[in-house]
């Protein structure tokens, strides 16, 4: 009898699985209810999380900064020289824009959010943000940090939302290389690196070249930094090139993000 009771117990989650599979709206409602209920705990725990972050990354950063002081000084000089060059370029750019009668694009509406949780599945890269539909977040809003593109909003609940990051296997972004203008699709492979797929065989891509969003599709605007090309090889089918991309965003260290809404521009 005891043994059979164990099997009955197994029936409970299976029944729940069938029920929620049959009624996905009910599934979403339960998720929304859970996150609304658990949000205060997550917000409190995110304070603890930031403390651990500081302990893990910033204490090591202090020692690195001391040892790299000379290197940084040389780099600052180099960058100052580049800055003068960029000032010239900016002036030239402004002149050319006026000539072509370009209108300055409207800025997107932005919402800042804090990462308060992460998905527990090892290969999934989905984070929980502390803002939701009550803070004007919408599905498919673009998520960025100063280093570049992070991902997009996947699900929105009243007080929280879930953002899918670029390394997630279910995230796809249309991209192009900055110098050679080769187009491809950026996809996650379950590791910290990204893959740029479907590159043309005759594309002349250099190692270290920047990869940016191409603006094709309705979600991501053109020109957001994604990463740098690390290696290139032929795809398994032999019809395309496949590049490994080192993301410019340190996905394991994201604490705050900016969500951009371009829907009003369209």
């Amino acid at each position, binding site marked *: 009898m005891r043994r059979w009771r164990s099997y009955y117990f197994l029936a409970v989650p299976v029944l729940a699985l069938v029920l929620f599979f049959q009624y996905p709206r009910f599934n979403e409602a*339960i998720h929304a209810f859970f996150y609304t209920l658990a949000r205060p705990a997550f917000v409190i725990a995110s304070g603890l999380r930031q403390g651990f972050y500081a302990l*893990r990354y910033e204490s090591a950063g202090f020692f690195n900064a001391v040892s790299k002081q000379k290197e940084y000084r040389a780099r600052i000089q180099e960058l100052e020289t580049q800055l003068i060059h960029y000032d010239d370029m900016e002036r030239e750019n402004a002149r050319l824009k006026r000539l072509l009668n370009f209108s300055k694009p409207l800025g997107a509406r932005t919402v800042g959010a804090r990462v308060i949780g992460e998905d527990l599945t090892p290969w999934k890269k989905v984070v929980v943000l502390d803002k939701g539909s009550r803070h004007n977040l919408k599905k498919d809003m673009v998520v960025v940090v100063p280093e570049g593109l992070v991902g997009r909003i996947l699900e929105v609940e009243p007080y929280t939302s879930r953002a899918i990051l670029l390394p997630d296997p279910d995230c796809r972004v249309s991209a192009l290389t900055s110098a050679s203008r080769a187009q491809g699709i950026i996809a996650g492979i379950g590791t910290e690196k990204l893959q740029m797929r479907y590159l043309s065989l005759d594309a002349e891509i250099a190692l270290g070249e920047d990869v940016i969003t191409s603006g094709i599709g309705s979600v991501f605007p053109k020109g957001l930094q994604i990463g740098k090309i690390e290696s290139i090889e032929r795809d*398994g089918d032999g019809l395309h090139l496949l590049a490994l991309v080192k993301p410019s965003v340190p996905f394991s260290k994201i604490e705050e993000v900016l969500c951009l809404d371009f829907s009003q521009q369209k």
Partner: protein
Amino acid sequence: MPRLFSAKVILYFFLLAVLDGTVMPVFQIHGVYPSLLYLFVCYAAFEWGAPKTLFVAFWAGLLRDLLGGGLIGVEASILTLLALALDFLVQKMEKALPGIYFIMTFLFAFSAGALRLLAGYAGELPASLVWNYLGAIAMTALYTSALLPFFNFMTNGWFGRSSRKQYELFR
């Protein structure tokens, strides 16, 4: 052994879920981090025995489902099924074998991850990616099982009891 419907157990479940979702990712190594809810199921199997393991596995799975954002019931079913197998193995295993608890926790966490992968992407993933994901699952299982002595200490502290078991890898 505490009563399962006590505030202490419910609060501990909630604490582990919140830690799993917020704090544990900070300790990630190459993108993988341990799961305290998996450890709680193994702890229940080793310390509390058969009927309670199923209860713990079900609630741990349900919490992971709720935290994960996918279909509710997938992890709960997987963990309850694996808890049945774990209970069976705990009754049969040679408890004096060094590292046996570590090995069983590893196998439990690895099987849970592999079944989750199967449930999520059955037949859809290219072979090269399957190996990537299995690698991540194995690393997660290794990391999780390495935390067993610490988790045992923490859980015993929470429930105010001392363990009779030796969780170290070697003795």
